[in-house]
């Protein structure tokens, strides 16, 4: 019966041929190749929980009087956006869990994109032919950060309102056009009432659609290029060694999706995030201390904090201080990030196709540069909490601020030198990164000691993965259907 149904569908759509091709797709085995999947799955969690939230959220800046269950707000004039967010947290069954899952998933989404990007960077997976996919990935990161900020702003609470205020000032700081841009974005003077509905439609429709489209392109290119792989185990620049999509990776990916969702749900259930009812409605004249953006905007907040009070006075026009840390810095950051594959190709003169990944230690300059750059942004992220750190460490705020100013400049150089040296040392240590052979120390009856190497795992006689010669088999429908034979298929790289 089911066979008949599938047969009927297949007769009309002819899915089985391309489907067969797809499910026989080989993916290289390495745990670090699965980090990007975390981003994919947390994005799915974001879509699902987000749809739930839109059922109850009212994207409006209009005033209402709060009549809900939270006593300290009762009778206060608040916006409909804030009102509906508090109500969905307290009065909708599962609403708070959904909101917290959505927020945690957003943190994990951007975080896993960054970790995935670090993996791609340090293994050189961005090199030809994958430059375009690197650029799509960078665009996805930027969009994820933007959409995170928009979503963070929607509840219209005290802290997010402060963030919108800063965003308005940053927009205004753009030379010559800033004021007009700010007015255009906010539909007039700050704060107005237009910003919540505008952010809402961008957050729930426009940006998710663009992200979804780019995600499809990202994965399509991955399939087209085939996944890059580490050398060893017979892997060469012109083949793919790994496990097939079906059943191995389908099972892994399915399990991984549920586990990622489970982690998000656990965090959403057990750890409070953004308790907006404690913050109250945002009014431009109210502000709280110890306010920062979500972590992925943290480097911008930190840059704003550590930036000395310099302005640039041009004839007839002043470039405000905010422009340098909040527009120029991210502008340069993401431009360089976007163009990095081409910059490196230019510097090294290496324009060949690469399907074999680098071990980070084998590219000490790139690795050291990457770690140093990451350290710079991590210091800026830390600088977004100068006040909280000063309070907890019982230091003066001024000292902490100056410490971060100096660290932002000094730490990258130290990190570069240390990483470079470590890479060089690792290159000369053949056993580095391999599994440790443990030793058993035995004491004999007469008191003597002897040392014998221990077994890796009981019954495991292949302690190191050495390159293996493999034989070629033509990929035919028959070969593909063979199960449990040599398992060696030939798939031509089609883009050639």
């Amino acid at each position, binding site marked *: 019966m089911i066979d008949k149904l599938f047969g009927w569908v297949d007769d009309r759509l002819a899915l089985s041929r391309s489907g067969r091709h797809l499910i026989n797709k080989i993916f290289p085995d390495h*745990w670090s190749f699965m*980090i990007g999947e975390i981003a994919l799955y*947390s994005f799915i969690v974001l879509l699902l929980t987000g749809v739930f939230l839109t059922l109850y959220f009212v994207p409006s800046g209009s005033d209402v009087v709060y009549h809900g269950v939270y006593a300290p707000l009762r009778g206060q004039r608040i916006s409909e956006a804030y009102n509906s967010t508090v109500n969905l947290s307290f009065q909708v069954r599962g609403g708070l869990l959904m909101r917290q899952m959505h927020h*945690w998933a957003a943190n994990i989404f951007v975080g896993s994109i960054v970790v995935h990007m670090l993996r791609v960077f340090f293994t050189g997976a961005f090199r030809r032919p994958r430059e375009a996919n690197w650029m799509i990935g960078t665009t996805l990161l930027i969009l994820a950060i933007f959409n995170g900020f928009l979503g963070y702003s929607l509840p219209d609470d005290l802290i997010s309102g402060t963030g919108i205020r800063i965003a308005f000032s940053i927009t205004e700081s753009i030379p010559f056009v800033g004021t007009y841009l700010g007015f255009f974005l906010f539909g007039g003077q700050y704060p107005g009432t237009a910003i919540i509905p505008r952010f809402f439609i961008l957050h729930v429709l426009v940006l998710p659609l663009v992200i979804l489209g780019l995600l499809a392109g990202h994965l399509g290119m991955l399939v087209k290029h085939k996944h890059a792989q580490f050398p060893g185990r017979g892997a060469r620049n012109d083949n793919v060694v790994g496990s097939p999509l079906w059943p191995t990776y389908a099972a892994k990916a399915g399990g991984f999706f549920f586990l990622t969702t489970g982690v998000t749900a656990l*965090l959403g259930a057990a750890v409070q995030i953004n*308790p907006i009812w404690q913050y109250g409605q945002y009014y431009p004249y109210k502000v709280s201390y110890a306010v920062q953006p979500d972590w992925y905007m*943290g480097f911008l907040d930190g840059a704003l904090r550590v930036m000395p009070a310099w302005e640039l006075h041009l004839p007839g026009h002043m470039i405000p201080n905010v422009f340098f840390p909040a527009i120029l810095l991210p502008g340069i950051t993401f431009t360089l990030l976007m163009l990095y594959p081409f910059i490196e190709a230019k510097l090294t003169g290496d324009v060949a196709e690469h399907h074999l990944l680098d071990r980070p230690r084998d590219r000490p300059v790139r690795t050291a540069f990457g770690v140093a750059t990451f350290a710079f942004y991590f210091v800026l992220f830390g600088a977004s909490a100068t006040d909280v750190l000063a309070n907890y460490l019982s230091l003066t705020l001024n000292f902490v601020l100056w410490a971060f100013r100096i660290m932002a400049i000094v730490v990258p150089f130290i990190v570069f030198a240390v990483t470079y040296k470590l890479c060089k040392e690792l290159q000369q240590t053949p056993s580095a990164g391999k599994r440790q052979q443990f030793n058993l120390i035995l004491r004999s009856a007469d008191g003597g000691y002897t040392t014998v190497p221990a077994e890796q795992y009981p019954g495991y006689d292949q302690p190191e993965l050495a390159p293996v010669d493999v034989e070629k088999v033509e990929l035919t429908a028959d070969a593909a259907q063979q199960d449990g034979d040599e398992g060696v298929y030939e798939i031509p790289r089609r883009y050639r």
Partner: protein
Amino acid sequence: MGVVVGALALASVLFSPHAATAGPGASLSSAVLASASAPNHRAALSLGRTLFDENCSSCHGVSAQGSALGPNLRGLGAGTVDLWVSSGWMPLANPAIQPIRKPALFDRAQTTSIAQYVASLAPGGLPIPKVDLAGANSAEGFSVFALNCAPCHTVTGAGDALADGLSAPSLHGVTATQVAEAVRTGPGNMPRFSTFTISPTQLTDVVDYVTKHIEHPSSPGGLSLGGVGPVAEGFVGLFVGVGVCVLIALWIGDRNEREDTDGHGDAHSPPGGEPPSGSEPEVAHA
């Protein structure tokens, strides 16, 4: 030398005597504990004098007139003294740094008697306020709190660092009386809020909000991470959220090799031998 001068300047800021003139309407339903019968009052004053002489006079002088080490307390009123002593700020080891809350050295009766004794030396200042929270409106208190208190103490009352080594202390563990005293007298770096800024009714509301909702925040949704905002949340998101997911990736991604160890005899072929099958790597060539 400069250090000493700086220390004295700071100490004089911390103890600024203008805090004494709390304005006519400052006593929100306040009452000096003068209603006690006269002999008891005399006994309290005598106890207060003894305690003051033993513990306070070395800096503030034997008649609270102040010295190079501590400011004049005359005319500051019982409320100011009660706040500084009951919060454990006083006695103070080092007048150059902002006092921090520590377990109070004196019990309630002793603290009150010291405060009454100092208040008896000169007229003026804030009596110890008696806060009646019946009928208080915590929503109005929340609004006043967000406007006037949150900019330094943070909206969750966690407290935070201010410039030059000063800080706005955490509001967790304070009493209603202390909140009212602090608002009206403005200890240290804190502004003094007169009845023109925070009306007596609003003060009751703020005290209600602080003692009920800052002390015992309605905290559904799990661990509150100290109420210090999104940086703490970011660390949890990165190191717990992404971290655990990456560990899961490590676990799942390493699965193939682990499977080799249990079962499948042919998976154990030595390097250079037959290509393994089953869950072992499959290869595609160009």
